């Protein structure tokens, strides 16, 4: 009898090699599924369990997830683009033309990279406003909000540095307009502008600096902060849902409305024990 894909996969997961790679072992019990998250260096940033209610579309609109999606798309399209790109004048512009007319799917790669970048800037803003209007920046999530603001700035810088790389008129003058603002900073404006451009005008040095920032420094910085951003979601008590906040739970208990949604369970309750300990499960 022919085996199903599941059976093949089950056998694969039993092999010595597989088990040496994945520490979580086999099985699909709740424990094993929790361990699959907890014992994985990347996935352990996340909680092993998530409240069902905050996974509804209206709670987050999945804006954070979608922002991550655009970032992954940008990495996936950006690396192949780097293979065809020289950060030098005027070769950079010739590479754009090559991408357009010579390289297989080069035009598509550049299009996808460009539109994903616009989408990421938009989604980061949308994510920020959504988090604000939900009040999800409240204690204990203050610092994760601050990291979010840092990530917003990094996203803007990533997009801005990438804007120069095609070395066409649009890129050149947009960066000229933008970098002129830097020189308006009191006292050290011109120094900042010189540091950013590697010269007094947008030229080949500026292109190289923007290239290094765009392909190396800023993506690595972004990944660093994204990791903290995700990890803090777990450490700060999971995705924000107002009615699970400690003070809301306490208020509900105080008002004697503890039977309201969401249901809460009492263990070992007695009439003559007045003290209540509210326990929040470690995520």
């Amino acid at each position: 009898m022919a085996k199903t894909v599941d059976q093949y996969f089950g056998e694969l997961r039993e092999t010595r090699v597989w088990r040496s790679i994945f520490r979580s072992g086999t099985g699909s019990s709740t424990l094993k599924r929790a361990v699959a998250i907890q014992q994985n260096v990347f996935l352990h940033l996340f909680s092993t369990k998530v409240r069902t209610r905050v996974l509804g579309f209206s709670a987050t609109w999945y804006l954070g997830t979608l922002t991550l999606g655009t970032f992954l798309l940008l990495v996936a399209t950006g690396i192949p683009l780097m293979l065809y790109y020289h950060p030098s004048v005027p070769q950079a512009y010739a590479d754009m033309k090559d991408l357009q007319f010579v390289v297989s799917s080069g035009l598509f790669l550049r299009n996808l990279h460009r539109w994903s970048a616009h989408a990421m800037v938009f989604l980061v803003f949308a994510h920020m406003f959504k988090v604000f209007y939900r009040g999800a920046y409240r204690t204990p999530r203050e610092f994760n909000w601050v990291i979010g603001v840092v990530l917003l700035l990094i996203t803007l810088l990533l997009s801005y540095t990438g804007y120069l790389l095609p070395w066409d008129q649009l890129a050149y003058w947009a960066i000229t307009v933008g970098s002129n603002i830097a020189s308006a900073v009191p006292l050290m404006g011109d120094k900042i502008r010189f540091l950013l451009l590697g010269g007094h005008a947008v030229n080949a040095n500026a292109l190289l600096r923007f290239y290094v920032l765009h392909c190396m420094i800023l993506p690595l910085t972004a990944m660093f902060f994204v990791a903290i951003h995700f990890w803090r979601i777990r450490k700060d008590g999971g995705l924000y849902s107002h009615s699970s906040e400690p003070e809301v739970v306490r208020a509900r208990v105080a008002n004697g409305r503890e039977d309201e949604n969401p249901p809460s369970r009492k263990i070992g309750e007695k009439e003559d024990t007045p003290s209540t300990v509210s326990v929040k499960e470690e995520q």
Partner: protein
Amino acid sequence: MTDAKDFVAGVDSNAKRSPRRIVFITRRTSAQVKAETEEQIQTFPEVLFRAAVAIQVLAIALVWIALVFNAPLEGLADPSHTPNPAKAPWYFLGLQEMLHYFPPVVAGVLVPGLVVMALIVIPYFKVNIEADGLFLKDRQRRLRMFYIVAAVLSIFLGWFHVVVALIPTLIMAALMLVASQSSPKSSSAFRRYLAARPLSYWIMTWFLFELVVLTAVGTFFRGPGWSWVWPWQG
């Protein structure tokens, strides 16, 4: 529960044996544990699956856009030939619009610097943690403050002829006026909603409104010499 002891507490000096933890539970002192049992699902695989679907939908949409619309590519960069207008990337066009009215040190440094500072400190100010309607408590003083701030801001923007920023400000001020004249017992749901909005909501919504309007004006309504151009004028 009986009073008879069903355990023996003692000291074991055998270092080779793993220690046992013993918990002593006596009557009347048991802690009352109240655990939240809100429904949860496993991250692996359910939540990861949902995230994958969301990202997949996004990827399909972006791939479709990339197949249909080409990224802009103009002529080779030419420092001797300035296009008119020279525009920054769209997310900076709100700033560029401000640069049209104010000196660079104000529009390019002071305002964005203050916006970033304001965003960072949001969670650290009690006024942003409160969720009560702005005009529900301490009504007279807050109304006075609102009138002063709205008037000063409007006169300032009007003085410099910043019409594109003045109009959103006036609309927000009008909405706040309606909010101040509403209460949680108002008959219309809209007014009940407005009455319950806290100060942080009003500030952030004003900021969002200005951001959208300024960016849209800079993107679609500005032509040569940063003059007003209707999108259909080409």
